[in-house]
């Protein structure tokens, strides 16, 4: 195994990494958990979304700043560095910076010190590293203008495009007629949980029966995959829709390629995003959502054997994360913050997994450079004896909150959005928790299904154990 390792350079050190992973996971396994510091308060940040969608993992790679290392494959000899000055941010420096901040109004960095040109050059060179935006790329690192050879490719048009290849998207595709194309960013159909569900089903050798919520999700996935395979729909792997053009155009990114596509009707099945929640320390490095966990463990091969992992929350993702981590040999601490789930709780107790109930997450903080500490407070409505506050330390914390429905591209195609906090955020107008649809302003029909429609998997909607959110 060792002979297959590759070396990368990180801030003057040489690190051994598996070649088939991402830079973020390679750094994590090498004990580097802080990838950046936040722009205003210099707060340490670690890998968070593992999907190239947040700011936490922007690093300088081979001289190019602002590279999302959570999706960047490891390559031998690459040079990786944090963009800020790291040690520059100590509590003392932070304090003196905030004392001086009154002298610097918001936006001073693009109003002041811009003329003459040499002042601007010197200013940018100084201020960028301080704010964590990174130094300007070295001229040699800039790619030569690819504009002419990288022209957009047109995929033509399809009768129905399904955006999202999870169970809901596959079910919709199997029902639709005509030329149907399913777009998904993963390499295989089944959605964000598919690999995790299949791994857990295989590694527990049929042990999912103890966890009805997992058994039901796995059964639904199998059925959706079989129906999809039997139908005539086409699946486009590794395809991410990055823009909707009114009235019927989509822009896709597949690796470095950009493609355009036109559609007759659209099914929005883009699922949901991880939600960490609003609590003190909600940016501490070492805290991720379940979707990021599935990507890091199954896509990037993150090895959590022997690591202490705290799993907090409820729902399908809580039980899937817990079982996956148990299968992979992590030392678990489980905190079920929802009531209900009696069958799953007894199964966890039978497995001797340390499990707490009646608590809610009250805060998170980073401990040293590599650990994270969760503060858990008793839930007010909890019956029985009064519990006291509890602190837990781990290498990683997985927060399993109800997800936030994705909406961006559907909005760009003209759909109205209505805020429905009880269903996770903004939803297309008319969303009432059932599958919904309508006509886009350009006359194209649309439907919204699954988590993108605010339907939480493993919730009472799919006749699974009763769950109430606190």
């Amino acid at each position, binding site marked *: 195994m060792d002979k297959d390792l590759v070396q990368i350079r990180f801030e003057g050190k040489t690190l051994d990494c598996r070649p088939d992973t991402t830079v973020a996971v390679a750094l994590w396994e090498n004990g580097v958990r802080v990838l950046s510091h936040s722009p205003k308060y210099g707060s340490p940040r670690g890998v968070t979304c593992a999907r190239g*969608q947040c700011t936490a993992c922007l690093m300088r790679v081979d001289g190019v700043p602002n590279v999302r290392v959570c999706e960047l494959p490891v390559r031998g000899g690459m040079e990786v560095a944090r963009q800020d000055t790291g040690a520059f941010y100590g509590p003392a420096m932070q304090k003196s910076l905030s004392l001086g901040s009154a002298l610097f109004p918001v936006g001073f960095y693009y109003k002041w010190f811009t003329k003459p040109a040499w002042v601007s050059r010197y200013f940018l060179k100084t201020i960028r590293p301080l704010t964590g935006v990174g130094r300007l790329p070295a001229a040699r690192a800039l790619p030569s203008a690819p504009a002419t050879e990288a022209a957009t490719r047109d995929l033509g048009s399809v009768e129905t495009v399904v955006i999202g290849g999870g169970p809901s998207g596959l079910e919709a595709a199997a029902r639709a007629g005509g030329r149907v194309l399913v777009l998904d960013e993963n390499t295989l159909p089944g959605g964000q949980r598919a690999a995790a569900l299949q791994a857990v089903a295989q590694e527990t050798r049929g042990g999912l029966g103890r966890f009805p919520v997992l058994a039901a999700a796995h059964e639904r996935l199998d059925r959706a995959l079989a129906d999809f395979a039997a139908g005539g729909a086409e699946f486009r792997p590794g395809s991410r829709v*990055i823009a909707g053009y*009114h009235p019927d155009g989509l822009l896709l990114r597949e690796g470095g390629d950009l493609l355009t596509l036109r559609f007759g009707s659209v099914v929005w099945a883009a699922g949901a995003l991880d939600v960490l929640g*609003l609590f003190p320390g909600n940016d501490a490095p070492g805290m991720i959502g379940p979707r990021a966990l599935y990507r890091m463990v199954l896509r990037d091969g993150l090895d959590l054997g022997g690591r202490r992992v705290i799993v907090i929350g409820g729902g399908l993702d809580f039980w899937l994360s817990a079982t996956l981590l148990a299968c992979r040999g992590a030392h678990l601490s489980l905190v079920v913050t929802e009531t209900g789930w009696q069958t799953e709780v007894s199964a966890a107790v039978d497995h001797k997994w340390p499990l707490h109930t009646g608590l809610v997450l009250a805060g998170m*903080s980073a401990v040293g450079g590599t650990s994270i500490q969760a503060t858990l407070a008793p839930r007010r409505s909890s019956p029985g004896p009064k519990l006291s506050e509890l602190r837990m330390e781990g290498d990683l914390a997985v927060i399993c909150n109800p997800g936030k429905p994705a909406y961006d591209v559907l909005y*760009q195609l003209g759909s109205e959005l209505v805020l429905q906090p009880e269903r996770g955020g903004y939803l297309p107008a008319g969303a009432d928790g059932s599958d919904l649809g309508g006509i886009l302003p350009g006359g194209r029909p649309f439907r919204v299904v699954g988590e993108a429609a605010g339907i939480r998997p493993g919730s009472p909607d799919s006749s699974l154990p009763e769950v109430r959110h606190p």
Partner: protein
Amino acid sequence: MSKPKVYLCRCEDVTVHEFREAYREGFTEIESLKRYTGVGTGFCQGKGCLSESAGLLAELRGCPPQDIRPTTIRPPAEPMTFAQLAALDVPAAEEDHP
């Protein structure tokens, strides 16, 4: 170390406290709060904070959540390089769209 902050927008480091203060100073619309505090203007363009800020605003105003319209969500949905943008060959968008 001071008490850990509750971040509303992680990209631009906007805390819940700052958002409430801005509301108290008279920025009571989601659009003006976005411009004043910078919430939702960062790398992720509001994926992490738009519905959270809108929910918090509804709470501060004491109005039903559906009264808070979203800010404009412009393409692309993820950052692209200027080289990629320059190479784009897509039909012009029609004008009546937000």
